[in-house]
């Protein structure tokens, strides 16, 4: 390498590379290389035997992508179903978790509140527990004779057998739809099924996600609320605005950036739901809790369909990366220059990201 600057600077070059080497090597080996290898597998006919770089493995072009996108076979309809399931999961979880988080944050941000440490801890606790432990608990709470149905029973309603009920909640009990809805299909799934909403089983996972992520995102909103301009707030107070008016006219507009962050982090997380499905239902009942992430895992490790499995992973990658790029692009426009605030914001974004799969 060419001499750059003084001796001190040269010493720093060696140290700089040495200090970052472990991170670069490990991330390169277990992040970059895997992505490249999977890219190859997604366009090859590798079946899981030996090395994907061995002589007998061939390039097959877009065949694997075709298998899951336009083959007309079971692989396509499975992928279609998984997309439909995850789509409804996203549609319900993202707005609900955002509203819950914002509501909790506003409630525990009150100045005169006694015991707010307790309330914050209580609401945040589900976020730190493992998705496996929570899912196990959920299986029990939502079992046919479980706690949730017992509570529903107080109101004289007979609760469903949650995790074994494949009926779409927007079918309202109807078993078959009219022909104009059942005939047209997209990705091997009928329009009737697409509009049927999540199954009752998937709905239980939706509730689980809202329960566990509400606290995580509450922290993000809380931090933002603490940094609001008090002058504006107090001016509104002096003007006699009601607290509801103050919230919608004064507070909420100032939370726009955080709101956006929470929404996109939610979108990114919800497309990755895996742990709960693996632990809870394995895609059952009737494939109504199948998600692309779980389907990809199942296709590879269950049926040795490595090519299509890698193709699904890349399609999922594409879906998620779109939201990530939108988020980065918009947030870059609003970037705050304060360094310390940046440190805290980064940390919180990590926290929220670690709430993977819209859980924990």
């Amino acid at each position, binding site marked *: 390498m060419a001499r750059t600057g003084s001796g001190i600077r040269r*010493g720093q070059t060696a140290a700089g590379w040495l200090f970052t080497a472990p991170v670069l090597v*490990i991330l390169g*080996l277990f*992040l970059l290389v895997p992505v490249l290898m999977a890219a190859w597998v997604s366009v090859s006919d590798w079946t899981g035997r030996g090395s994907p770089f061995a002589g007998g493995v061939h390039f097959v072009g877009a065949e694997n992508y075709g298998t899951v996108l336009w083959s007309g076979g079971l692989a396509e309809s499975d992928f279609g179903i998984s997309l439909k399931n995850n789509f409804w999961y996203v549609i319900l979880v993202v707005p609900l978790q955002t509203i819950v988080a914002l509501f909790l944050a506003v409630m525990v941000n009150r*100045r005169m509140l006694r015991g707010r440490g307790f309330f914050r801890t209580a609401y945040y*606790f589900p976020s730190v527990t493992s998705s496996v432990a929570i899912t196990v608990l959920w299986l029990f709470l939502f079992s046919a004779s479980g706690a949730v149905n017992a509570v529903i029973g107080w109101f004289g309603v007979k609760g469903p057998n949650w995790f074994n009920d494949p009926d779409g909640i927007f079918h309202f009990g109807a078993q078959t739809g009219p022909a104009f809805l059942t005939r047209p299909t997209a990705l091997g799934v009928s329009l009737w099924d697409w509009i049927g909403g999540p199954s009752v089983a998937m709905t239980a996972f939706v509730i689980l996600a809202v329960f566990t992520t509400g606290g995580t995102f509450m922290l993000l909103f809380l931090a933002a609320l603490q940094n609001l301009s008090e002058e504006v707030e107090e001016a509104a107070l002096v003007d006699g605005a009601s607290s509801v008016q103050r919230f919608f006219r004064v507070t909420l507009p100032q939370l726009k950036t955080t709101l956006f962050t929470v929404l996109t982090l939610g979108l990114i997380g919800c497309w990755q739901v895996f*742990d709960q499905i*693996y632990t809870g239902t394995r895609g059952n009942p009737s494939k109504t809790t199948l998600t692309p992430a779980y389907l990809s895992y199942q296709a*590879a490790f269950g049926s040795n369909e490595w090519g299509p499995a890698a193709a699904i*992973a890349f399609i999922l990658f594409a879906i998620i990366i779109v939201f990530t790029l939108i988020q980065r692009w918009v947030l870059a426009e609003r970037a705050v220059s304060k360094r310390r605030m940046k440190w805290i914001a980064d940390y919180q974004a990590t926290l929220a990201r670690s709430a993977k799969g819209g859980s924990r």
Partner: protein
Amino acid sequence: MTMSNTRELAEGVGLMGGGTAAPRAPRVRERWTPGRAVAQGAIYAILIAIAVIYIFPFLIDIATSFKTEPDAAANPLSLIPQTWTTAAYQQLFLNSDFPIWFKNSVIVTVFVTAGRVFFDSLAGYALARLDFRGRGVIFAVLVAIMAVPNIVLLIPKFLVINQLGIFDSYAGMILPLLVDAAGVFIMKNFFESIPVAIEEQARIDGAGSFRIFWSIVLPMARPALITIVILSFQGSWNELAHFIVSTSDPSLTTLTKGVAQLASGQLSQGTQYPLKLAAGAIMTIPVAIVFFIFQRRIVNQSTGAVKE
């Protein structure tokens, strides 16, 4: 009181590890009226009701783990077992692989947490302070890497682990988790927020980069390091997907993988809810302990956690 709001938030939930708020002007006080008192009461009622919803499931978990199976099915809401039994725990600890799962989770978590604390801060320091060629590129690569969604790496990671011949080994379980880009960023941003003067003095006195990092900078980085510890501990203890694709040997099963398989009935017959809930409760204890310990530690050393 208002002055410490930010810190209070951080420490109230026990996670931020620093941060201060500028002093603020005294507030306009709201006047007390009977109407306000009623509203105040309603707010507490709502907060308590929500707290019950958030806490009750965990109490049910613990209570059910001490119940018999028929009792668990018949009284799903009751917090007091009809007959107390530790059968579930005996079964877990004496008649199952549970102790092995626990041991594996401990091993992985300890190594991953130690590795992340050291390597993340090392790289974070280099990116924040050392002036070297290629720094910008490394930074850009890390930013790009952070965008790769974890779950998409399931199959890819297996391919590499398999190719490297570390499938079914602690190396395969630990190495891929040993560093994380997000942690590097937290450390980098933290180091950028502390004054550079002391380091410069040490450098003039002839100390090398590692020496400066190790004996001067790192001790100052405690709040950020605690953040890394909490995130790494929680992340690796709760990790499931990575262990599914990096191992198949039962003797390398971690708690998450073992309990997940227990839950989906691969290892058992019947519902066995007390057993499963006991397993879930035990695996929650370490993260809960870390959560509460660090909350207190941060509160205790609150003055001047980060000072500029």
